[in-house]
Structure formats: structure tokens, C-alpha cells
């Protein structure tokens, strides 16, 4: 696998959307290629950051009460 192929697969690698064979290929390449490993780390980091930062906060209680009246 060359860098171009690796970078092309990185999003799917980060998102666990590759086959086992492809995962093994990407892993092998990343072990031997610091620039691609750096790109990978950045992508993992941004994904995690987005998850953590956007996944905070609860729905307002008044909305919850209204929905309970609607649903039950």
C-alpha cells in the first residue's frame, strides 16, 4: 500500500468501515509511515473532539414534560 491508497482509506479506517483485510493493510502502512500516521492521529483527534464537544447538554425539562404528555 502506498501513501495515496492509505490516505484514501483513512476516513473509513477511523470510522471502522473497512474490511479486516483492509484494516490490516492500513495498520501495516501506518506503522512504517510517520506522515500517514500523523494524518491518522489528526483525523482521530478531530472526530473525538467533535463527538465530545457536540454531545453535551440535556433537553430542557419543559420540553420533556410536554413530550411526556404527548407520548403517554
Amino acid at each position, binding site marked *: 500500500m502506498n501513501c495515496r491508497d492509505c490516505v484514501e482509506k483513512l476516513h473509513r479506517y477511523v470510522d471502522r468501515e473497512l474490511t479486516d483485510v483492509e484494516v490490516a493493510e492500513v495498520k501495516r502502512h501506518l506503522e512504517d509511515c510517520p506522515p500517514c500516521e500523523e494524518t491518522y492521529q489528526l483525523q482521530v483527534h478531530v472526530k473525538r473532539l*467533535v463527538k465530545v464537544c457536540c454531545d*453535551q*447538554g440535556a433537553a430542557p425539562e419543559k420540553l420533556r414534560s410536554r*413530550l411526556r404528555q404527548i407520548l403517554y
Partner: protein
Amino acid sequence: MVPVAEHPVDTDAQQRFADEAIGYLDTLYRGALRLTRDPAQAEDLVQDTYVRALRYQGSYQVGTNMKAWLFAIMRNLFWDRFKGGRPDDVSLDGDGEFALYDTLKDPTAVPEADVLDRIAAEEVVRAVEKLPELHREVVLLVDVEGFSYKDAADVLGVPIGTVMSRLHRARRQLQRSLYDYASESGIVHEQGSGS
């Protein structure tokens, strides 16, 4: 024939449906906030989503992905109510956004990982909310909610390839936004030094 969707007779099933649905309230509300960028509109959108879910609960198959089902309802309502119609034309992806993508290919214009940790959460949220809706909703589904590409594609009603291309562009733009913020706020210098 009993009109199940409108007048459910099985109260146990109704209770289970309500329990499961209300369990997704916080996550739906956060999603609605990201989509509408407005708390009042987010509340309206979520409430309408539940009203519609209740009305069409007969079409929900027990045991399938209720979160995806609710997100699909909410997403469609969002486009219908706030954007004047659903973006079912894939060509909407094109033109200006391709040009934008091309300008982002400079490999030095990305923040380093340690720099990202010093960016405030609200700036990350702002960067997400700055994404065009078509890109924002994919990031919301895949990165925030952890949907598979297949589930995201089902929610959005587009092919998996479209999910992937929107996701790539969204992430590229996010990286750029975070890099710009880090540069402007002095967290990182233009040349990418993390110090």
C-alpha cells in the same frame, strides 16, 4: 381493519414505544440544536418529531434502529420546515463546495493534534455549526451519533458514496476552521508550530 398508527390498542406496546422514544430525547435535542442553531427552533423541531413519530409509529418495526428512525423523521422535518424542501438532488453537493474543497488541499493548513486539545469546546461546536447543512448533518450522524455509513445513508436517503464524500469534505473544512481559529487566537502560529 384497526387503524394501528392513529389509535394503538396495545397499551403495553404503546408504553414500550414511548419509553424507548423518550430515551432518545437528549440526543435528538442536541442534534436539533446543531441543525437549527437555535434553542427555540430546536425545541419545536424535536416536539414535531415526536408528534410525527407517534402518528406513524405503526411504520416503526420493533427491534430495528429507533434512533435512526427518529433522526430520519427529524432530519426530513428540518428540511421541510426550515429549508423549504428536502435536498434530494445530489448535484447540490457541487460547484461552490468543490471549489472550497480545492482551496483546502494545502496539507500544512491543519492543526496539530496537541493544538486541538487547547481549543475550547464552544469553538468546536461553532466550527461544526458553520458547516453547510448537507455536511453538518453527516458529521452529526457519523461522528457525534456514531451511525454506520449505511445507517447514515438510510437516514439521509442518499447512497453510501455520498455520505463518504460529504463526510470527507466536512472534515476537511472542520480541520481548516479549527486551524484558522487556533491561528487567530494565538494558540498556534501560521506555520503550524504547536507552541
